[in-house]
């Protein structure tokens, strides 16, 4: 440290500016959301595709506490800190893909709105042992109009239900893909994200032509 530590005067001097005096070009960031219930493999998914080991950030979420948690207490609001992890995949010098893994509780409406702003799409991770856990995520992305794909994390090829059964349980539209993948393998996560991107591309093309 090149400045004196003083506990009650929290100041220091910063020297900034690059040598050539020109503003730095920054890559365009794009993001995909990985959502789902507790312990379904979100962090594993992010880690498998990221070129850095996943980072964790803490965010304040304002919970609107309605619906499932306290029916009838719709106006109660509290703030909760949640841990969200993310990874990066550099596409090229001008384009970076961020993958954000987020807990899928329905209460955290505020943070999710922040999170999906500008997002390309979402992968909803499902463990067939606890399909219900992904309801809030599916419901949210449906209502928000964000392209999403349901990815059944196969946990060593173990699936308690077929993909058709999962689709039936989630009651999602025919055009929402349901696929099986393995969160531990980069190639498998990559292929799942490519399906998300296909959905995103369809939507972007539809939007452009209207």
């Amino acid at each position, binding site marked *: 440290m090149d400045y004196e530590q003083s506990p009650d005067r929290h100041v220091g001097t910063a020297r900034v500016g690059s040598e050539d005096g020109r503003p730095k070009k920054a890559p365009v960031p*794009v993001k995909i959301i990985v959502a789902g219930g507790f312990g379904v493999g979100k962090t594993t998914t992010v880690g498998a595709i990221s070129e850095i080991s996943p980072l964790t950030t803490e965010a304040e979420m*304002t919970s609107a506490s309605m619906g499932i948690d306290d029916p009838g207490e719709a106006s109660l609001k509290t703030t909760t800190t949640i841990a969200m992890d993310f990874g990066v995949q550099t596409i090229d010098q001008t384009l970076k893909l961020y993958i954000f893994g987020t807990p899928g509780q329905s209460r955290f409406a505020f943070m999710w709105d922040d999170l999906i702003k*500008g997002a390309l799409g979402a992968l909803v991770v499902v463990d067939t042992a606890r399909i219900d856990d992904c309801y809030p995520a599916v419901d949210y992305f449906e209502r928000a109009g964000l392209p999403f794909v349901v990815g059944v994390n196969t946990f060593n090829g173990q699936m308690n239900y077929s993909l058709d059964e999962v689709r039936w349980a989630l009651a999602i539209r025919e055009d929402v893909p349901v696929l099986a993948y393995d969160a531990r393998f980069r190639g498998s996560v990559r292929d799942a994200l490519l399906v998300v991107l296909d959905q995103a591309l369809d939507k972007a093309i539809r939007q452009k032509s209207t």
Partner: protein
Amino acid sequence: MTYPDPDDPASPARPSVRPFLQPSSSGGYRPAHRVEETVTDQSVSLRPFVITSGRTDGADPGIGMETQVTLNPMAAPVRLSPEMRAIVGMCSEPVSVAEISARLHLHLGVARILVGDLRAAGQLDVHVLDNDTPDPETIMRVIRGLRAIT
């Protein structure tokens, strides 16, 4: 294809139907569009915001988690708090707000506010996108890039 009748006791509805779709459901929840209303009630968690002088609503909504931040080459040397100094120290190469938050152990909300302040102070360039609906060309490039990774 045919699905089992969920009401048939011989083949019970497992897995169950998404509760939001049942008419009796008490709601689920909708995407909120009331940012001002939701950010103001931070009373239960003031501590992380002490270093932002108590402000919790100063974050520019255009600054997202993935927003890229770089040094402003025209910046004049100024006195900065240690947190701000640490942020500036990370930005010689483009870095996202989320990375700033994670690596400096700052709450995301705090990182956003400080980044906004540093931009206002002329220290940082914050590369807010003009258009945050992704365009087909960009998505195509992501697809090609991802296909190429092994």
